[in-house]
């Protein structure tokens, strides 16, 4: 153990450097959203002068507030749908013996994650182009991305807690169906459900590809609004929008991590 010490320390230093590389741009953007006058390449005096940060934030909320609401609604709908579908699916995968069929089903469920988001979006557009812009189609697109998280998290929890044998034991001891659900299933899956719900909310809230291609202006999401601010608005507005986005996203991620879910690959 002693001889590995230097390697661990070296690795920790590398990790720290990498984390700095990941954090600095975020900090710069957030700081410049609050103090547009900082020397951060802000050439527009309109946003730097007087009114300062508050003005950029107010502009974003006034212009893109509907996008923020749509994103919140979409995240809520698709995360709940993913939970409603993923809880039973994950449970049965976790309880079932690892047969070939179960394996294939698990692969099929996680396939959307392996594919480029654009491919999924384009496939949906090809098949259901007539419904482009409908909230339902957006929810479908987001469920494809959030379901894998729910299924995997719940299945893993079910396997870990060896729930199948516990249920069997409770049944032979005479516990009713309701009792088994109330005292066994719920407690052992609660944390997995909470974690996957938060992850699903985060993934849906940050998703760009599917909504960019499938949404009409009536249901633009906040990431598409971010794209609008990046291309057409001045830097403080773009920075303020990004800050609002991070303020929505980071608590969801932190909550999921805190509950013990491992970070997953996002969109």
């Amino acid at each position, binding site marked *: 153990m002693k001889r590995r010490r230097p*390697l*661990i320390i*070296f*690795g920790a230093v*590398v*990790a720290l450097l*990498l984390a700095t*590389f*990941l*954090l*600095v*741009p*975020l900090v*710069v*953007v957030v700081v*410049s959203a609050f103090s547009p006058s900082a*020397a*951060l*390449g802000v050439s527009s005096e309109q946003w730097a002068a007087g009114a300062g940060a508050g003005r950029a934030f107010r502009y974003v909320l006034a212009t893109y507030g509907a996008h923020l609401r749509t994103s919140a609604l979409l995240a809520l709908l698709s995360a709940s749908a993913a939970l409603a579908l993923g809880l039973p699916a994950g449970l049965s995968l976790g309880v079932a013996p690892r047969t070939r069929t179960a394996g294939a089903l698990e692969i099929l*469920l996680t*396939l*959307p994650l*392996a*594919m*480029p*988001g*654009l*491919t999924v979006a*384009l*496939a*949906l557009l*090809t*098949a259901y182009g007539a419904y482009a812009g409908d909230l339902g189609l957006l929810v*479908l697109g987001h469920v*494809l991305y959030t379901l894998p998280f729910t299924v995997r998290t719940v299945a893993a929890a079910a396997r870990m807690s060896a729930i199948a044998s516990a249920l069997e034991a409770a049944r032979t001891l005479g516990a009713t169906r309701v009792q088994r659900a109330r005292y066994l299933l719920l407690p052992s899956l609660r944390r997995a459900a909470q974690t996957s719900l938060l992850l699903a909310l*985060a*993934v849906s809230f*940050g998703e*760009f*590809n599917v909504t960019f*291609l499938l949404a009409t202006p009536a249901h633009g999401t906040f*990431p598409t609004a*971010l*794209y609008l601010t*990046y291309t057409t608005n001045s830097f403080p507005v*773009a*920075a303020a929008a*990004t800050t609002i986005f991070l303020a929505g*996203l*980071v608590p*969801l*991620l*932190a909550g999921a*991590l805190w509950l013990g879910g*491992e*970070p*997953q*690959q*996002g*969109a």
Partner: protein
Amino acid sequence: MAGGFVWPLARLCVAAFSRGTESHSGLYRLFADSYARRALGHSLALSLVVALASVAICLPAALSLARGRFVGRALLRGVFAIPLALSGVVVGFLAVAMLGNAGALPALLHTEWLRGTAYGLGGLGITYLYFEIPRATLTMEAALATVEDGLLEAARTLGARPRQLVWLVFWPLCAPALRAAFGVTFAASLGSFGVALIIAGRFPLLPVELYRSFTGTLDEPLGAAMALTLALLAIAVLWVSGRRAR
């Protein structure tokens, strides 16, 4: 799942083989057209370089996070999780904010040579690394965490020399983790769209050309062919790297 995923994919395949208003199928034109081929080549080359680089850079960090116990480890992992949930456009914007012609780094460091790096090939690579570093680190960490702790110790007790330790014990233990991380990062880079949309400039990449074919020039067969090719390549790489990892 069938209606929401399998059926749309089937429609996409049909579209890729159809001709539309052109004389050849989308798939044929993707490989016959030198520009589309070049975009595919660029995408593959960029993904390969970025995947290799991120695996190499992140191995020590992953080892340390998986095997070490130190203060702030949980916080570090939390920081690594953030970029995973950022859309590509946000990462692209961060690149412009830091390394653009009017970026923060050239301004804060008072250097000229960094100015505008975001739009060059180097900038594209660095920006891809931004979202691949967390992927590579966390994938390798997960794989390395399952390695039996006592194996190295046992080999050493049995009298293995350092070189033998590295090549006969340590490397075979790490290799599956490296392969898995390579697969995951390669597939993610290949399909990344938002970053390229913001900063790719004059450097054609397949996801952006796909978007252009589908949205701008209304060439559905070509766009479908590109989308299908990207998906098949990503899945193939993931499958090979994942299967070997077991």
